[in-house]
């Protein structure tokens, strides 16, 4: 649960993108599941003080490595970017519940921006001889899609569609348009395949795609993100709000009870 993982690689994926690929070798890989995360200590000083949660994007049990992607956004991730190969990082993990792995039917993956990262591990884990995987991915622009790993979808020969807000790649606009048109097309084909949906991205995107999925009667799992302190459910700093059976509002810990929740349970605008 607490280990010193060896940094096998820690490099920027595309110059100027701010997105880094971090490969860790150690104990985490043995038990990691898609949708889980690790809690990294980015420096030995007390400033910044807290660990940083990063989702697991790839799991290689045989080699004992996990792959993570992160975008440098503040001082913590900037420090992380400076960690060199062969150094060790203090890691708590794997943490959280992870995605449900479908055994049949269709798996529809909905990614918003760098929300694609945890979905990579799910793409690897799902048995594609039994499950049809479809990816819909919305981002600001083409650069982000390329830096965040569009080529990976090509290499995996996945069926995917993208949208960009600036129209530089795929369908111009938001992922919600992409989702609506895909579901329309799918209903015309009147396929009987069971479909399950998994979404990861910013809260506004998750809320919007969840509403569409629920309207269409599709089960949807969402991977949430929240400021975290302990990462293990002790401090209750990273809660989300859910509507429990019976209609009462309850808090759930994103780190321990999540980060994956059933979309139909999540109350998106609790108390504003």
């Amino acid at each position: 649960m607490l280990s010193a993982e060896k940094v096998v690689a820690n490099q920027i994926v595309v110059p100027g993108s701010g997105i880094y690929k971090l490969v860790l070798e150690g104990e985490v890989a043995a038990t990691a599941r898609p949708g889980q995360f690790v809690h990294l200590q980015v420096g030995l000083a007390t400033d910044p003080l807290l660990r940083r949660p990063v989702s697991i994007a790839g799991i290689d049990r045989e080699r004992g490595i996990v792959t993570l992607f992160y975008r440098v956004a503040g001082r913590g991730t900037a420090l992380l970017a400076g960690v060199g190969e062969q150094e060790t990082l203090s890691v708590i993990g794997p943490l959280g519940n992870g995605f449900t792995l479908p055994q049949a039917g269709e798996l529809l993956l909905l990614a918003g921006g760098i929300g694609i990262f945890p979905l990579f591990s799910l793409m690897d884990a799902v048995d594609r001889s039994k499950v049809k995987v479809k990816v819909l991915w919305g981002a600001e622009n083409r650069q982000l899609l390329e830096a965040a790993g569009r080529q990976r979808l090509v290499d995996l020969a996945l069926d995917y569609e993208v949208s960009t807000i600036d129209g530089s790649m795929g369908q111009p606009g938001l992922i919600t348009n992409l989702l609506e048109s895909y579901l329309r097309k799918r209903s015309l084909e009147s396929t009987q395949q069971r479909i399950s949906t998994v979404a990861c991205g910013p809260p506004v995107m998750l809320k919007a795609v969840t509403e569409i999925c629920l309207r269409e009667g599709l089960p949807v799992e969402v991977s949430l993100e929240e400021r975290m302190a302990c990462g293990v459910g002790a401090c209750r700093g990273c809660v989300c709000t859910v509507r429990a059976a019976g209609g009462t509002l309850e808090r759930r810990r994103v780190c321990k009870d999540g980060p994956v929740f059933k979309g139909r349970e999540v109350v998106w605008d609790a108390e504003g």
Partner: protein
Amino acid sequence: MQKVDLSTQLAGLKLKNPVLTSSGTYGFGEEYGAFYDPGFLGGITVKGITPKARLGNPVPRLAETPSGMLNAVGLENPGLEVFLNAYLPRLEALKTAVIVNISGFSLDDYALMAEAMPEESCIAALEVNISCPNIKDGGMAFGTDPRSAEEVLRVTRKHTKLPLIAKLSPNVTDITALAKAVANGGADIISLINTLLGMRIDITSQKPILANTMGGLSGPAVLPVALRMVYQVYAAVKLPIIGMGGISSWQDAVEFMLAGASAVSVGTANFVNPLAPLEIIEGLEEYCRQHGYAAVREIVGLAHR
């Protein structure tokens, strides 16, 4: 190798070693079980309980600060009844002293909570929280006025025989006035400090980061303030002290004990290094051995000589 006696006793609270974990940082004693057996600890302090369940504050509840963090959880807890029925039985299994932190919004609340906590159980003491900065009424309001603080302790005292720990707020001008007040009210032990009221602003949105606007500062940043207050309280009242505030290492713990703390409590450090409490126990033992103390109790208050 000479064996160091780590055991200690604070009024009616017997501890196998002087290292506790702080309320709100240690859940209900189960979350850190994946890292080590909590039975190694002197004791654990569970999340603050209120008579009724509380949803607590909206998110963001956390903000990072230089060498510290702000929290505004707002006393989210399952309420007294669920605590007694669901959590207390599980706490019985832990081989360590269990301290239950109780919070209220009125004197009646504190009376009710004290009355309801079974004396014949794993509960070793009650920590009376008169210092939570993250709720609108009660909490810190009781803990910043000596007369109210004394009254809370007096009322609570009438309803339980369990040792009472008064948890003091550092958000006061004179900490010794509060310490004397809770001593008069019937506290057996004083714990300090709770968090310091603070805030941060997001310069992009130009709004406070915390949904609650303000929150409680903890972590290494508050250590000197906490240490100073422990030192002052030790000189002002006779009650044993549980020192806390930014303790991350055994060296920090030694400082607090030298200042007058009979026991120390580890809070925010758990988030960074889950093994911190164990490392502190080992370090205290080694410090005593190196300096020729047969018992850790001997170093309490030595900085006052």
